[in-house]
Protein backbone atom coordinates (compact mmCIF):
# COMPACT_ATOMS: atom_id res chain seq x y z
CA UNK A 1 0.00 0.00 0.00
CA UNK A 2 1.32 3.41 -0.89
CA UNK A 3 1.38 6.03 1.84
CA UNK A 4 0.69 3.32 4.44
CA UNK A 5 1.75 5.57 7.29
CA UNK A 6 -0.54 8.43 6.31
CA UNK A 7 -3.51 6.19 5.67
CA UNK A 8 -3.25 4.42 9.01
CA UNK A 9 -2.77 7.71 10.78
CA UNK A 10 -5.80 9.15 9.02
CA UNK A 11 -7.91 6.15 9.97
CA UNK A 12 -6.90 6.48 13.61
CA UNK A 13 -7.77 10.17 13.64
CA UNK A 14 -11.13 9.37 12.07
CA UNK A 15 -11.86 6.68 14.68
CA UNK A 16 -10.96 9.06 17.46
CA UNK A 17 -13.27 11.76 16.12
CA UNK A 18 -16.19 9.46 15.46
CA UNK A 19 -16.09 7.95 18.96
CA UNK A 20 -15.69 11.36 20.59
CA UNK A 21 -19.06 11.35 22.38
CA UNK A 22 -18.25 8.06 24.10
CA UNK A 23 -14.73 8.68 25.39
CA UNK A 24 -15.32 12.35 26.18
CA UNK A 25 -18.17 11.53 28.54
CA UNK A 26 -16.10 8.81 30.20
CA UNK A 27 -13.13 11.10 30.71
CA UNK A 28 -15.06 14.10 31.97
CA UNK A 29 -17.09 12.01 34.38
CA UNK A 30 -20.41 13.21 32.97
CA UNK A 31 -23.12 10.67 32.74
CA UNK A 32 -25.91 10.66 30.33
CA UNK A 33 -29.21 10.47 32.15
CA UNK A 34 -32.45 9.49 30.49
CA UNK A 35 -35.03 12.28 30.40
CA UNK A 36 -37.54 12.62 33.21
CA UNK A 37 -40.92 13.54 31.92
CA UNK A 38 -43.84 14.72 34.00
CA UNK A 39 -46.88 12.72 33.16
CA UNK A 40 -50.30 14.36 33.45
CA UNK A 41 -51.96 13.85 36.82
CA UNK A 42 -54.94 11.58 37.05
CA UNK A 43 -54.59 9.96 33.63
CA UNK A 44 -53.10 6.55 33.14
CA UNK A 45 -53.76 5.74 29.53
CA UNK A 46 -52.95 7.80 26.47
CA UNK A 47 -54.43 7.37 23.01
CA UNK A 48 -52.49 4.12 22.81
CA UNK A 49 -50.11 2.32 25.18
CA UNK A 50 -46.76 3.79 26.18
CA UNK A 51 -44.56 1.67 23.96
CA UNK A 52 -46.62 2.44 20.89
CA UNK A 53 -46.74 6.17 21.66
CA UNK A 54 -43.00 6.32 22.29
CA UNK A 55 -42.12 4.92 18.90
CA UNK A 56 -45.10 5.94 16.81
CA UNK A 57 -46.48 9.25 18.05
CA UNK A 58 -44.76 11.12 15.21
CA UNK A 59 -46.37 8.93 12.57
CA UNK A 60 -49.69 9.01 14.41
CA UNK A 61 -49.66 12.80 14.41
CA UNK A 62 -48.82 12.90 10.73
CA UNK A 63 -51.68 10.53 9.98
CA UNK A 64 -53.98 12.69 12.09
CA UNK A 65 -52.81 15.76 10.24
CA UNK A 66 -53.79 14.35 6.88
CA UNK A 67 -57.05 12.90 8.21
CA UNK A 68 -58.19 16.24 9.58
CA UNK A 69 -56.82 18.70 7.05
CA UNK A 70 -57.21 16.70 3.88
CA UNK A 71 -59.92 14.20 4.83
CA UNK A 72 -62.14 16.40 7.04
CA UNK A 73 -62.35 13.45 9.46
CA UNK A 74 -61.84 14.62 13.01
CA UNK A 75 -62.51 11.78 15.44
CA UNK A 76 -60.01 9.02 16.14
CA UNK A 77 -61.23 5.68 17.43
CA UNK A 78 -58.51 3.89 19.34
CA UNK A 79 -58.16 0.10 19.29
CA UNK A 80 -60.12 -0.12 22.57
CA UNK A 81 -62.94 1.97 21.07
CA UNK A 82 -62.19 5.12 23.07
CA UNK A 83 -62.58 8.24 20.93
CA UNK A 84 -60.41 11.33 20.72
CA UNK A 85 -60.68 14.45 18.58
CA UNK A 86 -57.62 14.54 16.35
CA UNK A 87 -56.06 17.85 17.21
CA UNK A 88 -52.77 19.45 18.11
CA UNK A 89 -54.42 22.68 19.10
CA UNK A 90 -56.08 23.65 22.30
CA UNK A 91 -56.67 22.03 25.66
CA UNK A 92 -60.43 21.85 25.67
CA UNK A 93 -62.40 18.64 25.73
CA UNK A 94 -65.41 17.77 23.64
CA UNK A 95 -67.96 15.03 24.10
CA UNK A 96 -65.44 12.83 22.33
CA UNK A 97 -62.81 13.40 24.98
CA UNK A 98 -59.74 15.54 24.90
CA UNK A 99 -56.88 15.61 22.50
CA UNK A 100 -53.16 15.47 23.24
CA UNK A 101 -52.89 18.83 24.91
CA UNK A 102 -55.91 18.38 27.12
CA UNK A 103 -53.73 16.10 29.22
CA UNK A 104 -50.19 16.98 28.17
CA UNK A 105 -50.67 20.65 28.86
CA UNK A 106 -47.08 21.65 29.59
CA UNK A 107 -44.66 21.46 26.71
CA UNK A 108 -41.58 22.26 28.82
CA UNK A 109 -42.18 19.49 31.32
CA UNK A 110 -43.32 16.81 28.91
CA UNK A 111 -42.64 17.18 25.20
CA UNK A 112 -39.37 19.10 25.47
CA UNK A 113 -37.76 16.73 27.96
CA UNK A 114 -37.36 13.90 25.46
CA UNK A 115 -36.97 16.14 22.42
CA UNK A 116 -34.14 18.14 23.99
CA UNK A 117 -32.42 14.98 25.17
CA UNK A 118 -32.46 13.62 21.65
CA UNK A 119 -31.73 17.00 20.01
CA UNK A 120 -34.95 16.74 18.05
CA UNK A 121 -36.65 19.98 17.01
CA UNK A 122 -40.08 19.21 15.61
CA UNK A 123 -41.34 22.25 13.75
CA UNK A 124 -44.96 21.57 14.69
CA UNK A 125 -44.64 24.33 17.29
CA UNK A 126 -43.91 26.92 14.61
CA UNK A 127 -47.65 26.90 14.00
CA UNK A 128 -49.43 24.86 16.64
CA UNK A 129 -49.69 26.98 19.73
CA UNK A 130 -47.74 25.27 22.50
CA UNK A 131 -49.47 24.51 25.76
CA UNK A 132 -48.03 26.41 28.69
CA UNK A 133 -49.53 24.33 31.46
CA UNK A 134 -49.87 25.84 34.87
CA UNK A 135 -47.97 29.04 34.04
Amino acid at each position, binding site marked *: MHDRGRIILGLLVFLALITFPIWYNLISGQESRPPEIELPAGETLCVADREFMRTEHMQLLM*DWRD*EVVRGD*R*RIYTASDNRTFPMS*LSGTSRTEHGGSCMSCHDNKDKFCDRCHDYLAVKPYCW*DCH*VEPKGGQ
Partner: protein
Amino acid sequence: MAIKRRDFCWLAGLSVVGAASGKVLSVGAEETSGSGSTLIGEPLLGKRWAMVVDLQACRKEEGCRDCIKACHATHNVPDLDDPDEEVKWIWKEKFHHAFPDQEHEYLRHDLRHEEILVFCNHCDNPPCTRVCPTQATWKRPDGIVMMDWHRCIGCRYCVAACPYGSRSFNWRDPRPFIDETRTDFPTRTRGVVEKCTFCDERLAQGRPPACVESCESKCLIFGDLEDADSAVREALRTRHAIRRKPGLGTQPEVYYLV
Protein backbone atom coordinates in the same frame (compact mmCIF):
# COMPACT_ATOMS: atom_id res chain seq x y z
CA MET B 1 -6.41 0.31 -7.89
CA ALA B 2 -8.29 -0.89 -10.96
CA ILE B 3 -11.19 1.57 -10.86
CA LYS B 4 -10.61 5.12 -12.01
CA ARG B 5 -11.37 7.99 -9.66
CA ARG B 6 -13.97 9.47 -12.03
CA ASP B 7 -15.84 6.22 -12.37
CA PHE B 8 -15.76 5.76 -8.59
CA CYS B 9 -17.29 9.21 -8.11
CA TRP B 10 -20.03 8.48 -10.65
CA LEU B 11 -20.81 5.15 -8.97
CA ALA B 12 -20.94 6.77 -5.57
CA GLY B 13 -23.23 9.51 -6.83
CA LEU B 14 -25.53 7.08 -8.58
CA SER B 15 -25.69 4.87 -5.48
CA VAL B 16 -26.76 7.81 -3.36
CA VAL B 17 -29.46 8.71 -5.89
CA GLY B 18 -30.53 5.08 -6.07
CA ALA B 19 -30.76 4.70 -2.31
CA ALA B 20 -32.66 7.96 -2.00
CA SER B 21 -35.15 7.05 -4.70
CA GLY B 22 -35.77 3.72 -3.01
CA LYS B 23 -36.70 5.61 0.12
CA VAL B 24 -38.82 8.02 -1.89
CA LEU B 25 -40.81 5.25 -3.52
CA SER B 26 -41.46 3.60 -0.18
CA VAL B 27 -42.51 6.88 1.43
CA GLY B 28 -44.83 7.63 -1.44
CA ALA B 29 -46.41 4.22 -1.05
CA GLU B 30 -47.40 4.77 2.58
CA GLU B 31 -51.05 5.55 2.68
CA THR B 32 -52.66 7.06 5.71
CA SER B 33 -55.41 4.72 6.74
CA GLY B 34 -58.55 6.26 8.04
CA SER B 35 -60.10 5.31 11.28
CA GLY B 36 -61.78 8.65 11.79
CA SER B 37 -65.24 9.97 11.30
CA THR B 38 -66.61 13.47 10.94
CA LEU B 39 -68.96 13.65 13.85
CA ILE B 40 -68.17 16.36 16.34
CA GLY B 41 -71.52 17.72 17.38
CA GLU B 42 -73.41 17.34 14.15
CA PRO B 43 -71.27 19.06 11.55
CA LEU B 44 -72.79 21.24 8.87
CA LEU B 45 -72.71 19.18 5.71
CA GLY B 46 -73.08 20.67 2.27
CA LYS B 47 -72.49 19.94 -1.35
CA ARG B 48 -71.69 23.44 -2.58
CA TRP B 49 -70.98 25.98 0.12
CA ALA B 50 -71.50 29.56 -0.94
CA MET B 51 -71.81 33.00 0.62
CA VAL B 52 -74.20 35.80 -0.20
CA VAL B 53 -73.17 39.30 0.82
CA ASP B 54 -76.08 41.68 1.17
CA LEU B 55 -74.46 44.98 0.26
CA GLN B 56 -77.47 47.02 1.32
CA ALA B 57 -77.53 45.51 4.81
CA CYS B 58 -73.74 45.77 5.08
CA ARG B 59 -73.76 49.49 4.52
CA LYS B 60 -76.03 50.22 7.44
CA GLU B 61 -73.12 50.39 9.85
CA GLU B 62 -70.49 52.93 8.85
CA GLY B 63 -66.96 51.73 9.37
CA CYS B 64 -68.09 48.42 10.84
CA ARG B 65 -65.37 45.79 10.85
CA ASP B 66 -66.98 43.16 13.06
CA CYS B 67 -66.63 40.34 10.55
CA ILE B 68 -63.00 41.18 9.82
CA LYS B 69 -62.14 41.30 13.49
CA ALA B 70 -63.98 38.05 14.20
CA CYS B 71 -62.29 36.19 11.35
CA HIS B 72 -58.81 37.45 12.07
CA ALA B 73 -59.12 36.83 15.79
CA THR B 74 -60.53 33.35 15.39
CA HIS B 75 -57.74 32.29 13.06
CA ASN B 76 -54.73 34.05 14.56
CA VAL B 77 -54.31 36.18 11.45
CA PRO B 78 -51.38 38.56 12.05
CA ASP B 79 -51.86 42.30 11.98
CA LEU B 80 -49.06 43.75 9.90
CA ASP B 81 -49.32 47.47 9.23
CA ASP B 82 -47.16 47.46 6.12
CA PRO B 83 -49.52 47.02 3.15
CA ASP B 84 -46.72 45.28 1.29
CA GLU B 85 -46.61 42.47 3.82
CA GLU B 86 -50.11 42.44 5.25
CA VAL B 87 -52.00 39.21 5.68
CA LYS B 88 -55.74 39.44 5.36
CA TRP B 89 -58.45 36.86 4.91
CA ILE B 90 -61.35 39.30 4.62
CA TRP B 91 -61.31 43.04 4.06
CA LYS B 92 -63.10 45.94 2.39
CA GLU B 93 -62.43 47.37 -1.04
CA LYS B 94 -63.88 50.18 -3.08
CA PHE B 95 -66.44 49.13 -5.68
CA HIS B 96 -64.22 49.78 -8.70
CA HIS B 97 -61.50 47.63 -7.16
CA ALA B 98 -63.81 44.74 -6.34
CA PHE B 99 -65.84 44.97 -9.55
CA PRO B 100 -63.58 46.61 -12.16
CA ASP B 101 -65.80 45.39 -14.99
CA GLN B 102 -68.89 47.01 -13.48
CA GLU B 103 -67.39 50.42 -13.11
CA HIS B 104 -68.97 53.41 -14.83
CA GLU B 105 -69.32 57.15 -14.40
CA TYR B 106 -72.85 57.12 -13.03
CA LEU B 107 -72.62 54.50 -10.31
CA ARG B 108 -75.25 54.72 -7.60
CA HIS B 109 -73.97 56.98 -4.85
CA ASP B 110 -73.69 54.34 -2.18
CA LEU B 111 -71.82 51.93 -4.44
CA ARG B 112 -69.43 54.67 -5.48
CA HIS B 113 -68.54 55.73 -1.95
CA GLU B 114 -68.90 52.74 0.30
CA GLU B 115 -66.77 49.67 0.57
CA ILE B 116 -67.37 46.09 -0.47
CA LEU B 117 -66.49 43.12 1.67
CA VAL B 118 -64.13 40.80 -0.20
CA PHE B 119 -62.60 37.43 0.60
CA CYS B 120 -61.84 34.15 -1.15
CA ASN B 121 -64.61 33.29 -3.58
CA HIS B 122 -64.19 29.51 -3.26
CA CYS B 123 -64.64 29.28 -7.00
CA ASP B 124 -66.19 26.27 -8.67
CA ASN B 125 -63.43 26.34 -11.26
CA PRO B 126 -60.54 27.67 -9.20
CA PRO B 127 -57.37 28.66 -11.08
CA CYS B 128 -55.37 28.57 -7.84
CA THR B 129 -55.89 24.85 -7.17
CA ARG B 130 -54.98 24.05 -10.74
CA VAL B 131 -51.55 25.63 -10.47
CA CYS B 132 -50.51 24.37 -7.03
CA PRO B 133 -47.54 22.03 -7.57
CA THR B 134 -48.08 20.11 -4.33
CA GLN B 135 -51.86 20.16 -3.97
CA ALA B 136 -51.43 22.22 -0.84
CA THR B 137 -54.62 23.91 -1.94
CA TRP B 138 -57.48 21.95 -3.44
CA LYS B 139 -61.22 22.03 -3.85
CA ARG B 140 -63.08 19.81 -1.37
CA PRO B 141 -66.17 17.87 -2.44
CA ASP B 142 -68.27 20.27 -0.39
CA GLY B 143 -67.01 23.21 -2.43
CA ILE B 144 -64.52 24.77 -0.04
CA VAL B 145 -61.16 25.67 -1.57
CA MET B 146 -59.00 24.43 1.27
CA MET B 147 -55.43 25.09 2.45
CA ASP B 148 -52.95 22.58 3.85
CA TRP B 149 -50.33 24.72 5.58
CA HIS B 150 -48.17 21.69 6.25
CA ARG B 151 -47.65 21.04 2.60
CA CYS B 152 -47.34 24.50 1.13
CA ILE B 153 -43.86 25.20 -0.22
CA GLY B 154 -44.47 28.91 -0.57
CA CYS B 155 -43.98 29.15 -4.32
CA ARG B 156 -46.83 31.69 -4.55
CA TYR B 157 -48.06 30.36 -7.87
CA CYS B 158 -51.57 30.37 -6.39
CA VAL B 159 -51.17 34.04 -5.47
CA ALA B 160 -50.24 34.76 -9.08
CA ALA B 161 -53.17 32.71 -10.36
CA CYS B 162 -55.91 34.19 -8.18
CA PRO B 163 -57.80 36.86 -10.16
CA TYR B 164 -59.19 38.39 -6.97
CA GLY B 165 -56.10 38.95 -4.88
CA SER B 166 -57.61 36.83 -2.11
CA ARG B 167 -54.42 35.15 -1.01
CA SER B 168 -51.75 36.41 1.35
CA PHE B 169 -48.21 35.17 1.81
CA ASN B 170 -46.36 35.16 5.11
CA TRP B 171 -43.32 37.29 4.30
CA ARG B 172 -42.05 36.90 7.84
CA ASP B 173 -42.89 35.04 11.03
CA PRO B 174 -46.46 36.11 11.81
CA ARG B 175 -46.41 35.35 15.53
CA PRO B 176 -45.06 38.67 16.83
CA PHE B 177 -47.87 40.43 14.96
CA ILE B 178 -50.80 38.45 16.31
CA ASP B 179 -52.72 40.63 18.75
CA GLU B 180 -53.97 37.79 20.91
CA THR B 181 -52.99 34.24 20.08
CA ARG B 182 -55.85 31.81 20.50
CA THR B 183 -54.80 28.35 21.52
CA ASP B 184 -57.57 26.42 19.81
CA PHE B 185 -56.39 27.24 16.30
CA PRO B 186 -52.83 27.14 14.98
CA THR B 187 -50.95 30.11 13.65
CA ARG B 188 -49.12 29.80 10.38
CA THR B 189 -45.38 30.14 9.87
CA ARG B 190 -43.33 32.24 7.50
CA GLY B 191 -43.20 31.07 3.93
CA VAL B 192 -46.74 29.75 3.45
CA VAL B 193 -49.77 31.20 1.70
CA GLU B 194 -53.05 31.60 3.55
CA LYS B 195 -56.64 32.67 2.88
CA CYS B 196 -60.20 32.26 4.02
CA THR B 197 -61.25 28.61 4.33
CA PHE B 198 -64.97 29.23 5.01
CA CYS B 199 -64.18 28.23 8.62
CA ASP B 200 -64.03 24.53 7.85
CA GLU B 201 -63.09 23.78 11.45
CA ARG B 202 -66.26 25.52 12.68
CA LEU B 203 -68.45 23.84 10.06
CA ALA B 204 -67.19 20.51 11.39
CA GLN B 205 -68.57 21.50 14.79
CA GLY B 206 -71.92 22.56 13.40
CA ARG B 207 -71.18 26.29 13.63
CA PRO B 208 -71.40 28.86 10.84
CA PRO B 209 -68.34 30.82 9.72
CA ALA B 210 -67.07 33.36 12.25
CA CYS B 211 -67.80 36.34 10.00
CA VAL B 212 -71.41 35.23 9.48
CA GLU B 213 -71.95 34.74 13.19
CA SER B 214 -70.42 38.08 14.12
CA CYS B 215 -72.42 40.25 11.73
CA GLU B 216 -75.12 42.11 13.61
CA SER B 217 -76.72 43.40 10.43
CA LYS B 218 -77.02 39.81 9.22
CA CYS B 219 -75.58 40.77 5.89
CA LEU B 220 -73.55 37.60 5.41
CA ILE B 221 -75.64 34.61 4.40
CA PHE B 222 -73.90 31.25 4.26
CA GLY B 223 -75.42 28.09 2.89
CA ASP B 224 -75.51 25.20 0.48
CA LEU B 225 -76.41 26.12 -3.07
CA GLU B 226 -77.43 22.54 -3.79
CA ASP B 227 -80.11 22.78 -1.09
CA ALA B 228 -83.08 24.54 -2.66
CA ASP B 229 -84.38 25.57 0.77
CA SER B 230 -81.15 27.10 1.98
CA ALA B 231 -80.87 30.73 2.98
CA VAL B 232 -78.48 31.44 0.11
CA ARG B 233 -80.90 30.10 -2.47
CA GLU B 234 -83.70 32.10 -0.90
CA ALA B 235 -81.62 35.26 -1.05
CA LEU B 236 -80.69 34.66 -4.68
CA ARG B 237 -84.32 34.05 -5.62
CA THR B 238 -85.46 37.40 -4.27
CA ARG B 239 -82.75 39.81 -5.36
CA HIS B 240 -80.28 40.29 -8.19
CA ALA B 241 -76.75 39.24 -7.41
CA ILE B 242 -73.46 39.97 -9.13
CA ARG B 243 -70.16 38.14 -8.84
CA ARG B 244 -66.59 39.34 -9.24
CA LYS B 245 -64.99 39.02 -12.70
CA PRO B 246 -67.53 36.47 -14.01
CA GLY B 247 -66.03 36.56 -17.51
CA LEU B 248 -62.94 34.68 -16.40
CA GLY B 249 -64.85 31.43 -15.98
CA THR B 250 -63.78 30.86 -12.39
CA GLN B 251 -67.41 30.50 -11.23
CA PRO B 252 -66.99 32.33 -7.92
CA GLU B 253 -69.36 31.20 -5.21
CA VAL B 254 -69.63 34.51 -3.40
CA TYR B 255 -72.65 36.49 -4.56
CA TYR B 256 -73.21 40.18 -3.90
CA LEU B 257 -76.74 41.50 -3.59
CA VAL B 258 -76.63 45.05 -4.87
